[in-house]
């Protein structure tokens, strides 16, 4: 069973952490993964930094710029991740922008991921129609789950289309915004989480964007399998470095 599905089958609310590879220091990537795992993180999204991250807010933009200045590259990331499976058995997902994958070669990218033991891919700007026609088979052949996004504006019809593309989880964007822009959840967001849960999709639901503490975590995971936290974690890394990791994960519980 794919590690993502194995994690989703657990009877608990999953903590999924996003971080930018090569940040704060170029060689921090694997150490961040290990410490996150040791601190009780359930899923890790490894962000491949991109020069023009359209769906990301200022915090992730800045960490991406710094990581690129540090010398991070697609090749470098794959080198760093070599052997990571000797230490870590939780799901690892690569998140990046499609141009980076395209320039590396989509097939080569998938192959490298498979060799390393990556379980899934999040590519916000790879549209589902193009994924379905051009890349779905390829991803599946390499054991990679494609994690699609949905937003409060996504129609029921389209949600069903998206649901049919995979069998792991869909990334529910908590509200219409770039990452890191929220201040806790109101009734509107909560009813959206519930509406999606009531749809009884094939895929599980994980909520991202705007989760930063125990309160927002509890709210967003009430009707779903768990939450994805990015900007708030990056801010912790920026302020307290890698030593702040256990405390941050603990603060969500």
């Amino acid at each position: 069973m794919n590690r993502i599905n194995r994690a989703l089958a657990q009877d608990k609310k999953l903590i999924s952490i996003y971080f930018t590879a090569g940040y704060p220091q170029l060689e921090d990537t694997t150490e961040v993964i290990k410490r996150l795992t040791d601190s009780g993180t359930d899923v890790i999204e490894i962000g491949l930094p991109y020069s023009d991250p359209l769906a990301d807010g200022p915090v992730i933009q800045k960490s991406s710029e710094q990581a690129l200045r540090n010398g991070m590259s697609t090749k470098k990331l794959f080198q760093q991740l070599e052997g990571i499976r000797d230490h870590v058995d939780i799901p690892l997902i690569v998140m990046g922008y499609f141009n980076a994958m395209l320039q590396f070669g989509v097939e080569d990218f998938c192959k490298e991921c498979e060799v390393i033991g990556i379980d899934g891919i999040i590519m916000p700007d790879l549209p589902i129609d193009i994924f379905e026609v051009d890349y779905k088979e390829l991803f599946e052949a390499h054991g990679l789950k494609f994690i699609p996004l949905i937003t409060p504006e996504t129609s029921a019809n389209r949600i069903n289309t998206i649901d049919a593309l995979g069998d792991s989880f869909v990334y529910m964007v908590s509200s219409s915004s770039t990452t890191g822009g929220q201040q806790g959840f109101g009734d509107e967001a909560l009813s959206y989480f519930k509406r999606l849960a009531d749809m009884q999709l094939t895929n599980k639901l994980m909520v991202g964007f705007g989760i930063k503490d125990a309160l927002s975590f509890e709210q967003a995971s009430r009707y779903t399998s768990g939450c994805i936290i990015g900007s708030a974690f990056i801010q912790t890394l920026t302020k307290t470095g890698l030593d702040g990791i256990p405390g941050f994960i603990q603060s969500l519980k």
Partner: protein
Amino acid sequence: MSKYSANDKGFYGDFGGAYIPELLYPNVEELRQNYKQIIATDDFQKQFKSLLKDYVGRPTPLYLAENLSEKYKAKIYLKREDLCHTGAHKINNTVGQILLAKALGKHRIIAETGAGQHGVATATVCALMGLECIVYMGAVDIERQAPNVARMKMLGATVVPANSGSKTLKDATNEAIRDWINHPKDTHYIIGSVVGPHPYPDMVTQLQSVISKEVKTQLLEKEGRELPDYLIACVGGGSNAAGLFADFMDHEEVGIIGVEASGKGVETNESAATTILGREGIIHGSKTLLMQNTDGQITEPYSISAGLDYPGIGPMHANLYKTGRGKFVSITDAEAMEAGLELSRIEGIIPAIETAHAFAIFKYLDFKEDDVLVFNCSGRGDKDLDTYRTYFGY
């Protein structure tokens, strides 16, 4: 439909499409489903034509530049887009898109701008229509284009500095896209060129195609034929070129020449000659030719003209280049500045530096004496006076 136009998914051959985050899907989809139909309505056409005529000042003249013709031994016409209200062709597009935004019930307008021309053209139509206007502009560009920033503010627009990335046009575009993600319901994004996700390249080309339609009519009057031998226009994102080429692309006998900015030279790291230095990739939701490193990180282009330093080109142009239908030439800063000075001295027309690039091609291309050339004189040089003054020491 032209074989060089977008198909129903927005692809020009291998290029185009809509590589957008799901977050942007509702916005782009609403536009895609409605733009053709709205543009085709009598109401839209009536208002569009009326504004282009009485507000923009169309049709712009097709002027036979006799002195230039004599010097370069060809029959050279200038399509005088520089005489449009606000000083460039950009306003054709913003007039069209503001009418579209109104038809879609949007009351908040966002735009990106590099040199500020598109920002001014957007602020202008927002003032006219009484709509809120927010223009994203790279922090670096705000510094170097102060007069246009002042114009936008005087027109009532809010100018927001883009402080991300390289703080120039591509980052302003990213910020505008992020704003649109954050405002999916009430906001229309007026992109200023034939770039971005489908339907923008096709929509902006349609709105700018008034240029090529007028050229046909005017050429028939002056030359007794609709088709010139060559069309020449500068290409940054490529909207003035798209407007000039639009209705001629299927006439294979008409030569199409796009002129890119090679900055300090294509062999230097300071250039914007995308067809030479770019590879296929994705920028701002479109698959096109794009300047990037081996990892796919988008690199910062350079040109003395702020309107040409975009790291990609519109997907239609990428396809014209790849299929060989269009020929692309690149012109350095120095060549463009000299051409701008020459046009000023022998025709009494001070062109925008973007436009000046097109007039520098004679060094690289030969024409026959009876060849009819139509240049898009896309913008006037007022905004560039400081750069001209500094360069020539006036």
